[in-house]
């Protein structure tokens, strides 16, 4: 009888990457098409990171919100099993409701397992507008959630109409809000943010007392410098900045 025989399971730790995607009417057309295309392309990269990572398995969950909220799957799926279903854009921007829905799943009765054996999740919010519902109340609920407090939170503002103050409130810092002005930049930033968050979020050790969110921000910032049409939201708008979605 050995202590570590096959009777004893040692599962890999889990890191869940959440996509929270605005599918309101203003996202219709090339924006939502770019989001669909970018996520489909990034999934194999996440699968690779997960397969090569001895520390953790990466799982993916996606919440779309317009007038209502909808999870693409009823549970987080391993990256290699997550088949992206293209989302369609229409109607309003119920970000407050999305926050409450996210809070309900950031729990052991929802999508999360025991805190032991889990890494804090990474949450990527994509939006091109302003909430049309009671965002403050939704965010207040979410901010009480321990998983949310510990999460890596990054927002992608799609175009200048995105309410960056709202996105800053969501991430907790304007440095974690990245603005994109065209389709190529949107696709590239989704890839960079998803890959970087997964790489850093699923590692056991952090560099000193720097938080994982700070590490993600630093890496994405340096990548943004090389993406035309993308910028850190807090930076002054460049004169060359413009929205080009067609």
């Amino acid at each position: 009888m050995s202590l570590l025989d096959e009777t004893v399971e040692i599962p890999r730790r889990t890191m869940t990457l959440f996509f929270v995607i605005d599918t309101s009417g203003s996202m219709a057309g090339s924006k939502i098409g770019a989001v669909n295309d970018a996520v489909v392309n990034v999934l194999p990269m996440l699968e690779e990171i997960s397969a090569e990572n001895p520390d953790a398995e990466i799982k993916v969950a996606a919440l779309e919100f317009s007038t209502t909220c909808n999870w693409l799957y009823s549970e987080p799926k391993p990256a290699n099993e997550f088949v992206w279903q293209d989302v369609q854009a229409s109607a309003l921007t119920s970000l407050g409701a999305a926050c409450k829905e996210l809070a309900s799943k950031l729990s052991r009765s929802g999508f999360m397992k025991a805190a032991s054996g889990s890494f804090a999740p990474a949450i990527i919010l994509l939006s091109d507008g302003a909430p049309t519902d009671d965002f403050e109340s939704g965010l207040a609920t979410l901010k009480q959630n321990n998983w949310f407090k510990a999460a890596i939170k990054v927002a992608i503002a799609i175009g200048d109409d995105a309410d960056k103050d709202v996105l800053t409130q969501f991430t907790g810092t304007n440095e974690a809000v990245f603005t994109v002005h065209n389709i190529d930049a949107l696709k590239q930033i989704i890839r960079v943010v998803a890959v970087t968050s997964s790489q850093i979020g699923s590692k056991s050790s952090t560099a000193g007392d720097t938080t994982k969110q700070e590490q993600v921000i630093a890496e994405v910032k340096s990548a943004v410098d090389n993406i035309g049409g993308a910028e850190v939201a807090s930076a002054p708008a460049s004169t060359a900045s413009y929205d080009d979605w067609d």
Partner: protein
Amino acid sequence: MTIGTNITSFDCRCQGESHKATDKPCQDYSFSETTSDFCLAIISDGHGGTRYYRSDAGSRLLSEVTARCLTEFAKGVPETTFSGKPYTTVGIGDTMPAVLQQLFGAIVVGWRNAVMEHAGQHSLTETEQALAVPQDDHEWEKTYGCTLIATIRTPSYWLAFQVGDGKCVALREDGSPFEPIPWDDRCFLNKTTSICDTDALSRFRCCFGGVDTAPVAIFLGSDGIDDSFGEEENLYNFYVQLAKGFSHDGHEATVKDLEQSLPILSKRGSQDDMSVAGIYDDRCQSLLPSLIQWQKGRLEVKMDVLSNKTARTWANIIKGAFNTDDRRMAYNDLTRYLKEKMDLNERIKKLDMETS
């Protein structure tokens, strides 16, 4: 009810895989002692952040101070204090019995004094100065920050207490595991309460009772152990397997197995430092069939869940509920369920062989 009388203690620790890679010392410490008057076990886990650069010394000092305080406690507290008491838990915010408040206060003060004495004898190295130079006593204490779990059993009572994360798991007389000490919700993911907190005394939580309520075994493990197993059931299973070892292979062989297994567990699991300590009594020796039955029971529950999933998936395929992509995923799920069921079957067979 027969209460075990021959009580044994053990402890074991190892440097984590990630600490080996970065040449960091093992920041966990463990201690156990068996005397004619009592049996005790202690683990302490030094914090890993850069500001806690003396937490390896902090965890050792805390274990030593706790052992000393518990020894005095066992000698000084009248047996009637806990004798005949029911199993009682005291969580965060609950009123702590005065005698325990005094014990925990002595541990906190004793550790702070030990830290300042150590600091006085060991001036900062250049590396430590580059990290942070403590400006006052509290900042010094922070550099030694660590958690604590301890248990003691005497002929008349038992007691277990904790500050911070890590888990204490006990075994009932029927072999079923449970966590006897209430949890502190401030401990979440990599955040933990600590003996170095200014309000450390208010973060102690504990459980105790007369000897007739004593668990067969009490195991203490640092968060490096918990994080390797994820769900509590997997962690409980590890300790059940450990108890099976004590029951079947004996004390020496099982402690040796534990010492050899912890580095492997760190490599395959959390990569963190690991410490395990505990006490168990002679009822453990006759517990083997119950422990095997507990392990078998959880596998059978898993088998039922898989069978239900399989049936549901087949039903949906037959009634054409899926589009092409979903159907492909459903067949993948069925293949995975089948493989998992075969694996579970093998493990159940192995447990049956252990029973026979």
